[in-house]
């Protein structure tokens, strides 16, 4: 349980947000060319990091906009919030 600083609405309780999982997973450009292994990588395999992870969040019960977050999953501390489309920050 923590407070999230929505880049559009400001500080709100985490219960207003929906977690969207790992960020920066790119949709395959040529889906028809993909092997089964590559599909599995894209669809199912996750880093599931213990430590700082880049992930997507949606302010579902607020402005309903998406944004990115760098969060330490070992203690739920939010390191940085940045907009969709921006490159992940270097650690």
């Amino acid at each position: 349980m923590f407070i999230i600083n929505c880049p559009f609405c400001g500080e709100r309780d985490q219960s207003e947000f929906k977690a969207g999982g790992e960020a920066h997973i790119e949709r395959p450009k040529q889906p028809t060319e993909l092997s089964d292994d590559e599909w599995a990588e894209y669809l199912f395999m996750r880093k599931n990091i213990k430590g700082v992870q880049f992930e997507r969040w949606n302010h579902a019960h607020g402005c309903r906009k998406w944004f990115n977050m760098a969060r330490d999953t070992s203690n739920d501390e939010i390191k940085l919030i940045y907009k969709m489309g921006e490159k992940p920050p270097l650690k």
Partner: protein
Amino acid sequence: MKNKYSIFSLIKNAFSYHENWQKAWKDPTPKKEYDAIIVGGGGHGLATAYYLAKKHNMKNIAVVEKSWIGGGNTGRNTTIIRSNYLWDASAGLYDHALKIWEGLSQELNYNVMFSQRGVMNLAHNLQDVRDLKRRTHANRLNGIDAFYLSTEEVKKFCPIINTSPDIRYPVLGGTLQKRAGTARHDAVAWGYARGADEMGVDIIQNCEVKGIKRNGDEVEGIETTKGFIKTKKVGVVAAGHSSVIAGMAGLRLPLESKPLQALVSEPVKPIIDTVVMSNAVHAYVSQSDKGELVIGAGTDDYISYSQKGSHQIVEGTLNAILELYPIFSRMRMLRQWGGIVDICPDASPIISKTSVKGLYFNCGWGTGGFKATPGSGDLFAHTIANDEPHKLNAAFNLNRFISGDLVDEHGAAAVAH
């Protein structure tokens, strides 16, 4: 040789004020090399070591645990045991475990307090009714005892449930598995540890794995906080931390680790003599032998290793509990805690070889692994000893995420997620 626990040993030890009981397991320092090492000293890991020693005659093995045995999800779950899963593969897996549970206390000479008090699953809408009826039929075809109950029969079986038609999620029916029930989670870990220790297994606590050493495509050993240990076979049963261990070997798994919470109330006199689960409103409850209500809540939707969950998850569960059981409205909760569960995309476990020779994973049990502890240990031991899966866990391989042959129990079964 371990002394047998019995009424006579209890009386004998009473004369020495219970101060001379034999230690249930040793506290060994790790050897330089083992034939196999199990990473993770929870119920599943200890059971794996027990069956490796007992059925596959592998005595030179060790279990390494970063904390104390049974201190992770084994000691944090709500102890529900059942096997009424929809798909054939799942039914086979979980009923295999249930059959072992039925004789486990005798086999281990350790009272795991297995109590077949029945598990009831409630239906709250028309789709629930259809799904539960379908599952009852599927269970019966697989030889699993299952009954469909009407609202009146639900009320008769558990009189404290509010079956009034005008609550927000009225009880339209339910299923009952009478062989299902609960067991004492700590005793399962301790019983398996004692049994494995007796056969020569080294149980090494406070020993965290820091790395997995590979020689090309083969495992060479593990780096731990107690030094390097050589081995050709490593079986990882690390629940929420499976992805972390996999990362050490350069592998990725289809898992997400999330907090799952549970809570217990103050102890009261016997009021509920069965286990009641309700997926639609996400509330399940049973009563421990001490008298506490044991209540399971849901998972948070974000990845976290913090063993803490959100308040609103607990609040939602308690709202549902109060609507279904108005009698509990003045109960006070004593403790609340979280555990980290590793969830697979298809909500089924992985008991599998990997692309690295000698590296095996038993993970992905998500929110419901306790019930499978004996079966999971037995099948994982078989997989490690023979380097091939048993026919009961063949479907639960890692390759299913590439082939697409998923065992999709999400929502289809009574799995509370």
